[in-house]
């Protein structure tokens, strides 16, 4: 089943008075359970594409479907509803809320989803174990290393059991060891839970984890290959 389908999508930005086409007609289909890398030089449109799939932004033309539903013309609140519970995000910067502990950061999407206290507690325990951070649960982000913060972000992205996780350069700010660990956790979670991962990167060490690589260049899909993981 398709988790997301992108049909002939364009996205134009006005930068000052200059019109810039970030995407110039991209079509792509991602099946459930995929572990797909989005590669390409900076400015090729990776982030824009992830934002469109993630319902953070709307295409200038074309259609984006999530689980068969056209999300291209939803209003702000409908998009927020779509994101909540269906899509998880992992960002390049360690996007945690600094005033909340690891535990509370993971709890946030569950709270937004109106889950009961006992459900939340149980789910957070599971997730902390999955990312191997049980003993860091009550630390604030500034007391965690970059790798640990990114693992909390992964746990948060997974909290509401979304069907799709979008990661924008998840290892760009990590050293090799931590980057590897993050990729291994993502791979494992993909295999264990079947959640679909799409991640943007231009790091070859990260690309090698992908089972499919989509290359963007100048706002178009340049290559679309089903590479097998190196491992």
């Amino acid at each position, binding site marked *: 089943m398709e988790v997301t389908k992108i049909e002939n999508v364009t996205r134009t930005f006005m930068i000052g008075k200059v019109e810039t086409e970030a995407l110039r007609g991209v079509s792509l289909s991602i099946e459930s359970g995929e572990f797909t890398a989005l590669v390409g030089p900076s400015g090729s449109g990776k982030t824009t594409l992830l934002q469109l799939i*993630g319902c*953070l932004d709307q295409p200038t033309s074309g259609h984006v479907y999530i689980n068969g539903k056209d999300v291209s013309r939803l209003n702000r*609140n409908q998009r927020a509803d779509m*994101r*909540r519970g269906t899509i998880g995000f992992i960002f390049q910067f360690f996007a*945690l*809320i600094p005033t909340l502990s690891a535990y509370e950061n993971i709890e*946030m999407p569950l709270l*937004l989803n109106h889950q009961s206290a006992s459900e939340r507690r149980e789910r957070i325990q599971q997730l902390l174990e999955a990312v191997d951070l049980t003993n860091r649960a009550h630390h604030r982000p500034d007391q965690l290393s970059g790798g640990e913060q990114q693992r909390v972000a992964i746990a948060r992205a997974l909290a509401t059991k979304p069907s799709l996780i979008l990661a924008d350069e998840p290892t760009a700010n990590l050293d090799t060891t931590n980057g590897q660990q993050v990729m291994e956790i993502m791979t494992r979670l993909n295999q264990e839970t079947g959640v679909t991962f799409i991640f943007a990167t231009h790091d070859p060490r990260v690309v090698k984890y992908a089972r499919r690589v989509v290359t963007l260049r100048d706002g178009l899909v340049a290559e679309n290959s089903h590479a097998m993981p190196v491992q």
Partner: protein
Amino acid sequence: MIQLFRMAFRDLGRNRRRTFFSILALAMGLALLITMASFINGEMDNAMDTTIRLQSGHFQIRAQNYDERKTSLKWEDLIENPTQVAEQISTLEPVIAASPRLFASGIVASRNQSAGVQIVGIDPASKTNDPYREGLVSGEFLTADDREGILIGRPLAEKMGLGVGDQINLTANTSNGDVSEQLFTIRGIYSTETRVFDTAIVFLPLQKAQAMTRTENHASTIFVLLKDKDQTDAVIKALQSSSYKILTWTKMNEIIIQTENLANSYMSLFYLIVLVVTATVIINTLIMAVFERTREIGILSAIGMKGRRIMAMFLAESSILAVGGILLGLVLGLLVVAYLERNGFYVGNMAVGGGGFLIRDTVYAKFSLEDTIYVSIMAFVVTLLAGLYPAVLAARMEPVEALRAEK
């Protein structure tokens, strides 16, 4: 909801100094308003109380055609047999005392100096004259049969360099339009701590005043003090008489009531100005918070937080600021009010007494629960309104743009 306030609370804790100063700004504004309100309250009470005690009484009885502004001494403008009338009124249960007074204008002169005064003839034994008796700073109070004694106020004595036992020349108008003149000995010097009054009023025993102004067995007014000013209407109803005119304290002191109403409406405007100024501090704090946390707003939005909730989060922050500011403001305000209730605020040289409006030299604040609650609620509402703009700003952010922010 609890989560919302917990986050808001922690967010405010990020920049403690800024939060503290925002709370302090609101607290100082509120404390200022509470102080002002209690000060005005105290001043108005003081003015009413002082004016009733010294000048108007709870009511006065006058001849039908007496004109206050002219201090007329014509017999037809005066009350005949005033002692008898006063005694009759004294028998009424709510009355503390009723006593005749005679008003005349005059001039006191000593060596090269002179001053215009109002001569008030009083019954020295009456309780209505307690404020002057108790205010005696030196010498003796008058006695009813004293033919040469006069009582003058401290500021007048100081101005003219006079002391007890000194002699002054008093000139007074008489009922037939003449002027009479006599040498008096200062028996005592009084102070009611009300400069305007003490400078202008000199006292003579009633009989002497009558003799000097040729108004034997007449008085300008019967001055009546009651146990409780709320009984005024009941008492004057019992006294209805066509031959006299009855003036109540509300009628005589209309100017004070009007001034109080005017002061209250000015104060409302003043409250609003002060609160709007403090609100700008709150707006500023929250706008800075919104911009500093733009990326976090983007993250919250990305994980599915709706604009409404983002707005609620910032409104929670402004309500915490409001509550903090109000609590601190109440503490500060009440401390200042407590101090001013005990020690007062000296206004002596500024005190004006125009239009029959007397204020004691020291004004004591009087705490008003009603005003305090009113300004606190106003502070809360204004602060929440101030938080609205930054909250809307946060809620309207496009997630994509918010995520792109530097921090």
